[in-house]
Structures are given as C-alpha cells and as structure tokens.
C-alpha cells in the first residue's frame, strides 16, 4: 500500500506530541510536513526534534508539499473550522481533535463541506483504541453483566491550561464568550470541553442515545481561571440507563509550559474510570492502569508513570485504512454530533438549573 502523505497543522493542541512517534513509526504513513500556528508552537515542536520541516504558513506548506493527502488538525477548538475548510477545499483528508466545534451551525457546515469534498474526517477519540476499552466493549457486548442499568464514569485530569493557554480561553476553547450562568464570573470552555470521552463511550456501550442531562459546576480549584474546572453531570439515556459523569480538572498540576516529568501534583495525571451496573452483574474499569510508581525526580513525589499509550497507534491505523479503502471512521462527524450536543446540554443545564433534553 502506498504510504499516506500526512501533515500536522496548528501544533497547539495538548495531544500534538502524542502523534509524533506513531507518525514516524507507521510505515503506512509518510509524515512530510508540519505547520505551527505561531512561533511559540514552532519552538515547542522543535524541542521534539522529529526531523520533519515545520512551516508557519499553511499555504507555503502546501506549495512545497502539494502531495499532502491528510492532515492532523492539532489546534485550538476555535481554529478547527477554518483549518478544516482549508483542507476540504484541497480534498485533503482530516483527522480532527476531539472537539470539532461547539457551534452547531459550524458543525453542520463541516459535515456538508466534508461530504462535498468526499474526504475522510475522523474525530480523535483515542480511547476506542485503548486495549482496556476494547476489553470493556467486548465484555458488555458478550453480556458479562447483562443489560446496562447505570454507568458512572470519570474523565479527570490535571489542567493543561499552563502549557496550552487556549484551553483556559473561552473564545479559543468554546468558540464564543458565554457566562456559565447568571451571576457566575466564569465562562464556558474549561474542563468539560477537554473531556468528551465518557459522553461518547456510554453511547457505544449502551447503543442508546442521550435523553436528558443535568449538570452542576463547583467552585474552581485554580485561582484566576476564567473557565470552569470542576463539574459533574447526571442524566439518563433513552434506554433508561442512568449515568453520572465527572469530567473535571480535579488533579492539580505544576504550572509548566511544556508537558514533561513533574507536571502532576496529584500522583496520577489522568484517569478514565468506569463502574457499570448491569442486571446480571457489575464491572469496574481503570482504562489507564496498572502502571509503575515512583517518588523520584524531579519533585520527589509519589507519581504514577504510565505504561500504556497505544491509543494513537490504533487511531492512526484506522485513519489510514479509511483513506485508502474509503471507509467511514467509527468516530465521524455525524456520529460525534450527539456527543457534542450532550456536552452543550451540560452547559445549558448549568445555566438554567434544569435538565436539558438532548436530541
């Protein structure tokens, strides 16, 4: 199979660095170029010494690499629309970060322009390629706990805002400046916008759609943050499954500019944990464990050192397969729309104090 000529764009998203190894290793890909949003992003990119040229102007990148077939759009949420439009106009396939946009008019336009261009647009929800999630989905499908009645899921992390400031900027993260609720000084665009996974996973596990959702924000842990960092949501799927989600930035961090050792203050940077009750049993799941543990450098604190980061391998394999064999990705724009609507439902519920009906 002819390797897919691929590029990266933006280079400001927190997941950007996680692609490098896979793009280099995977023989089905030829990583030809990168295009950073600004000089700062370029400088950070250059720290990783990938050997792949980095531009600041996408048109210059395209002039020099007119054979680019696919782009990983690795930028802030507000930049996605423009960059995806740029790709669609050139017939370039797209791997979008996990939030294409929260603006549903833009979202529909994204669907239309990708359909018109006949390109693949895959949304990066990498948890599907996590081996624990794969086992989880198999167990549920095999009926290990019967029909799902209730799901509790966390997607809790440290806050990436110090390394990726756009994630604390309401406009760049949420796409517009909207207060969380009357009298609240904070705006939409924080932890919730960083954590779509559990909203997506429950749809796959139950095979059902969201019915309604109710959410509450808590006091922030971080002073000076304009967006929410602590919230929870409860609700029901249309098949009756009850859920409780925690998509918070509840793990504190050091305010470092480039992610690296010592970033975490709480021992574990990121947890996606689920407990699922079915009519024939119950299951608990830690998608990022077991690991190894230490209290060495740089901060001499008890720290979880992850051992599993396969997600990007499977994600990219699927993307290449979809491009070469004209398949539709599991997480495509149309599928993902309801996940985004459920997340918007959380913000609506926070604003109104009432449940938000989804769909």
């Amino acid at each position, binding site marked *: 199979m002819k390797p897919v000529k691929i590029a990266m764009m933006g280079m400001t998203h927190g997941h950007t660095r996680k692609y490098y190894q896979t793009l280099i290793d995977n023989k089905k890909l030829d990583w030809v170029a990168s295009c950073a949003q600004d000089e700062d992003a370029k400088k950070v990119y250059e720290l990783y010494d990938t050997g792949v040229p980095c531009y600041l102007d996408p048109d210059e990148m395209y002039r020099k690499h007119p054979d680019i077939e696919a782009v990983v759009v690795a930028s802030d949420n507000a930049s996605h629309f423009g960059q995806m439009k740029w790709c669609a106009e050139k017939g370039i396939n797209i791997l979008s970060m996990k939030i294409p946009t929260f603006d549903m008019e833009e979202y529909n336009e994204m669907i239309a322009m990708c359909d018109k261009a006949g390109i693949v647009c895959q949304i990066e929800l990498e948890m599907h390629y996590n081996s*624990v999630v794969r086992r989880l989905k198999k167990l549920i499908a095999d009926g290990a*706990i019967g029909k799902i009645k209730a799901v509790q899921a966390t997607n809790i992390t440290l806050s990436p805002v110090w390394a990726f400031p756009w994630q604390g900027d309401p406009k760049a993260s949420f796409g517009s400046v909207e207060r969380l609720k009357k009298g609240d000084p904070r705006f939409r665009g924080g932890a919730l916008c960083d954590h779509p996974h559990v909203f997506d996973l429950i749809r796959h596990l139950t095979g059902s759609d969201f019915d309604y959702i109710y959410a509450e924000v808590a006091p922030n842990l971080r002073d000076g943050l304009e967006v929410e960092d602590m919230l929870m949501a409860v609700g029901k799927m249309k098949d009756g499954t009850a859920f409780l989600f925690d998509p918070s930035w509840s793990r504190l961090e050091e305010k470092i500019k480039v992610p690296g050792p010592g970033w975490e203050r709480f021992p574990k940077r990121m947890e996606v944990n689920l407990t699922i009750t079915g009519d024939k*049993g*119950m299951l608990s*799941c830690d998608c990022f464990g*077991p690991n190894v543990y230490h209290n*060495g450098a740089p901060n001499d604190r008890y720290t979880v050192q992850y051992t*599993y980061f396969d997600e990007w391998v499977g994600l990219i394999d699927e993307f290449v397969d979809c491009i070469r064999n004209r398949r539709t990705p599991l997480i495509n724009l149309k599928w993902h729309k309801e996940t985004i609507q459920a997340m918007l439902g959380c913000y609506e519920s926070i604003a109104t104090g009432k449940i938000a009906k989804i769909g």
Partner: protein
Amino acid sequence: MIPQPLAVNRTDCDRLRNDSTGKTNMNLKKMNKGLDFLREKYGAKNGEIVLKDGHCFVGAVPLLPGRMERKIVELKKMTENGTLEGVSTLRFAAFAPKGTDVEAMLAKELDLAAYLGASDIVRVMAVAGGAAINVLAKLANDVNVSVEIGAGLPKGETGYDRHEIIAKRGVACDQTVDTHTKHESIRCWGEKGVAEYTDVDTELFGLTYDEIWNVRAAFALLQGRADAKIWKAAWDKATKVAALALAANRDRAAKTIALKKGPDTNQAIKVAEVR
C-alpha cells in the same frame, strides 16, 4: 478468557505458566501470527518463535520477555534518566501456582535483577522452605538483591510479581503503595463469579500476558533492537545463577560467580514502539 474453577479468573493467567515439566499453555500459532503482523507493519527480518524446554527462542536465541514488559521498560528508564539516583537495593518477588518451575522463575527474576541493577550478579545465597525459596544476591556494583519466589498458589491462579528499586533518591515499584493485591484494569462481578482482566497491548489484543512479551521480544530481536549475542549471554548467566542459587540452598553456603569479560549484557534495548 480461559475458564477457571476458582472464584477469580484472570486473562493474564499465563504469567508464570510453565510447570516443572516444561509444559506451557502458550499458543505458538497465535504468537507467530502476531509476530508476522508486527513484522509486516513495521518491517523486520523473517523469524519464528519456537519453544524449547518451556522457554521461547527465535532460532538459537533465547528470548528475554521479562525485559520487554512495559513495566520493566519504565523501571529501566527510571534508573537511567535520572528519576532514580543511587540505586542501593532491589526487592523482587514472584509467586506462581503449585508445580511451576521454580528454577525458571528464579532465572527470570535474576536476569531482571542484573538488568535493572545494571550489573552482573557476583554472589548468591538462597534458603528454601517448601514451595518457596528466598534469595539474597549481590551485584558487581554492590547493589543488594532480594528475590522471594513461591510456587505454592492454588492451580489456576494467575500469580503475582513485584519489582521494587530502592535508591538514594526515590523508590520505584510496579505495584502500588499500601496494597498487596495486584491491580487489574477490569474487575467484573458476573453471574459466574469474579473475573479480572488486564490487557496491555492493543496491537496484540487477545494474546495472553506471556505471549505478548514473547512476541514483543522476538520482534525486537528480528528488528535488531535487541542483540542476539547479548541475550544469549544474559540468559546463560541467569540460568547459571539460578542453578547456583539452588546449590547454595543445598550446601548452606553462598556461591560466588566470577565476572566474565565481554559485552555489557544489561544495557537497555531500544523500545521505539513502546510509548
């Protein structure tokens, strides 16, 4: 999942699977299929995993799957990247079901001791009791090593191991603090009891824990990231030290191992595909 008669079933139950007759329940056909998949995807020489006396080889080269386990990869990195400074002592343990080959368990753990301690074993003493043997060893760089080995778990149990590195700066371990039970990714309480699952490799999903690391080891060898001569020499040393540990128990006297000239057999291998 392999059905188990016990209350707790685990998918990685082949961790310490070889019994004293060298029998294994590793599935070589599946393993070689996984190896072919990796070779085709990333590129590597041709080669096949074969089983000799309960141990996996590629050709005449013994595989060192323990060195490929991601937890061991991370621990090794910590000893080399400055996370840990001034290693003093290694505390290892491995427990397996009745009938497991204790000498093979010892060889694996003693190889990992030399590997993580970055120095060959020069002295070993051991005291056995029943299905257990306690080993105290010394590395050439003066690091102490203790290894608890037990083959007394009920048949069908998965086993448990622990690798702790104690340094002047930092302690690292592949088991969590404040518990003596192994963490598993999924615990499922179904109608037939409790089942536990730990899946560690997306590309080799469906293989058991032991199968995965043997495939990864074979792949590293065929890609040239692991050196055949080094692995052969390392395994020779480990099996000899394991035999000496048993002799030390029998003779009630520590055994000394002369340092051999030759290449460093404890260097970290390149693990480009392991993140």
